[in-house]
Structures are given as C-alpha cells and as structure tokens.
C-alpha cells in the first residue's frame, strides 16, 4: 500500500506521524508543502483542509495525526 505524507519541516505532528510510520517499518513518501508549490497544490486538491500532516494511504486520507484512524487503515 502506497503511503504519501504531506508535511512542513517545523510541524510536530508531522514528525510524530513519520515516527509512527517508521516505528512500524512502513515506507512512505514525504512531500514538503512549504518547499514545493506542486506538493501543496496536490495536497489541497485531495483535501480542502489546511491542517497538517495529511497522510494518503492508498487513496484514504488521514488529516492530522490520528493514531486510531492510522491503525485502522494500516491494520496495526
């Protein structure tokens, strides 16, 4: 399952989400929306919310670090 995560460098919950994925040995692709306009546009097209992180798990979106929802979607 492909995991894409949209982040900014200073965002603590983005770091938490990445740490959570890493702790479960789940590979993910990170997109820094502060560095790339394209990434920001892509994220905003997927979700109308501007709350980070946005985690796209095979098309299912998790907005903000929501551990319960991540565990549910990832079958953890």
């Amino acid at each position, binding site marked *: 399952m492909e995991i894409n995560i949209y982040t900014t460098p200073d*965002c*603590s919950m983005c770091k938490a989400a990445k*740490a959570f994925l890493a*702790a479960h040995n789940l590979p993910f692709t990170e997109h820094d929306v502060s560095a790339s306009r394209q990434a920001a546009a892509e994220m905003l097209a997927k979700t*109308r919310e501007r709350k980070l992180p946005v985690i796209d798990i095979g098309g299912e979106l998790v907005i903000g670090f929501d551990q319960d929802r991540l565990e549910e979607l990832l079958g953890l």
Partner: protein
Amino acid sequence: MREPDVLILGGGPAGLTAAIYAARAKLAVTLLETVTAGGQLRDTVAIENYPGFQSVTGEELAGRMAEQAKRLGAEIIGFSPVLSVSLAAGVKTVQTKKASYRPKAVIIATGAVPKKLPIPNEAKFAGRGIHYCATCDGALYENSVVGVVGGGNSALEEALFLTNFASKVIMIRRRGYFNGAASTFEAVMNHPKIEVLFHRDLLDVSGGDSVESALVVDTRTGEKTGIALSAVFGYIGTEPKTALFRRDIALDEQGYILTDETLRTNVPGVFAAGDVRVKAVRQITTAVADGTVAALNAEKYIKQGQNMAGA
C-alpha cells in the same frame, strides 16, 4: 500487568524531569506519552528563556530531556494514549490499548492543550482557516493575510513566526496591552508585517470552503468591522488534559488538578506536575521544577510504604 514503582503520564518537560529524578532515585520508572516526548514543547520553534540555552528548539530540548531520562533507565513509551485509570482505590491501575499498569505511585503530567476559539463557526472552519498551531499549519498561508487572537507570549511569538509565510499578520487583542515578555512585545510592535488591533475581540469568521473574513468588535465602542483574511490562529490560553481523572482526582472549576506544596493530589500516591495543575505561572522552567518536586515526593511516598510493610 506491569508494575513499575512510578508511572508518569505525559512526556512534556514536567514528566521528563520527573522521570530523570525518579530514575536517579533507582526507582523503576515508566513514562507513557500519547505521541512522542515533548508535550507543548514540540510546537515551540525557539525557546529563549530556558537557562543554559541562548536559543534552543523545543524539539531539541525535549529530545535531550528524553535521552537523559532513558540513559538513566527510565522507560519511555510513545504512541500510548491512556484509555482509562482507576486511582481512587488503594491499588492504582492505568490502562492503555496495549498494556495495563499497576504502579506504586502515579505522576500526572498530561499538560494542557490550546483552548478553542469561542466563536460560532469554530467547528465549521477548524483546519480550514481556524488553527491553533502556527508551526504546523502556518506554511500553508504563504502570501496570505492571517490573524492571531490572544494576549500572551504564545500569541506574540506565533505572530512573529507567521511573518515567515504570511504577507501580513493582524493581531486581534481584546485589551489595550499584552501580557508577554517585553522583548517579544517590542519585536512584534516593530515588525513591518504585523499590525496590532488593540481593544478588538473576534466575534466570528466566515467564508466559503475556507475562511475569507473575520468579524471583530471594538471592545470600547461596540463597533463591528469585517477584516479580509485567510486564517485565524488562536492563542487564548490552554485547557488541562484531565478528562480521565475527573472521577478520582480533585480539580478546580477549570479542570486543573489541585495539589499541595508537595504536589500531592487528594489521592495518596498520586501527584501532579506541570501545566495540568493549578498554578500561577506556566513556563518550561516551572514545569521542570514541578517534575522534580513530584518525583522526590513520589520517592518518599514509596519508601514510606516499604518501611511500613517491613515494620
């Protein structure tokens, strides 16, 4: 069932300091953290009032505290939100998704979270122009006009941080003064991108998909004005994370935990430290002090229990 001597709930500066002191007292210490160590520190970009550091990021300071606690033997378990507690009876139990704990002493250091803006459209625009974490969401408002509501240090610091992205930052302040540090206030007042609206209170926000304008009222004249902006960041204080403890632990009307000088709660063997308890000054330094006092008194409590058992 795990049975540490001390179970610390919360991994901010209060909890981490308690872990350091309890571990140095050779107690078996477990610290449960909802996410990763740091607490509200995690969202603080530059800390310039923690002695020994000219300027340090919250992440680095929290990381150093956590590393120190771990090296001393404390067990820090992240991503472990507490589901339920039973503290009032003689035996204290704490339940997470993965484990149950029956510690001799508990230190509650769960901290506080930003208070939501008390406006009608808060829920409608949460994440779509209503925000509470500039370091998290600020970068999405590049070249936009954003508002900051609040009157303390956090509001001032976050307004400065937001100037990295926003074309203009409008501070909405109910009163004619700020409560924050004089140096930060000066930086805000002198910043070309920041406009301060004194004596203005936020009444509501409106927009389509996301926030497009804010309605503010002049607190002296009652005159209402609309301001075009894309987001409002709220820093109007915090509320304690004490929902789980309501049944067992004595709280004040705002939900903060009542303690005595030794940071004992109304329940023997349960202590509270940091922003979660009733106190006058909530700073990293005072959280660290609380962690110290709570851990040393938890140690005393445990040793007294052992002496009594031995006698």
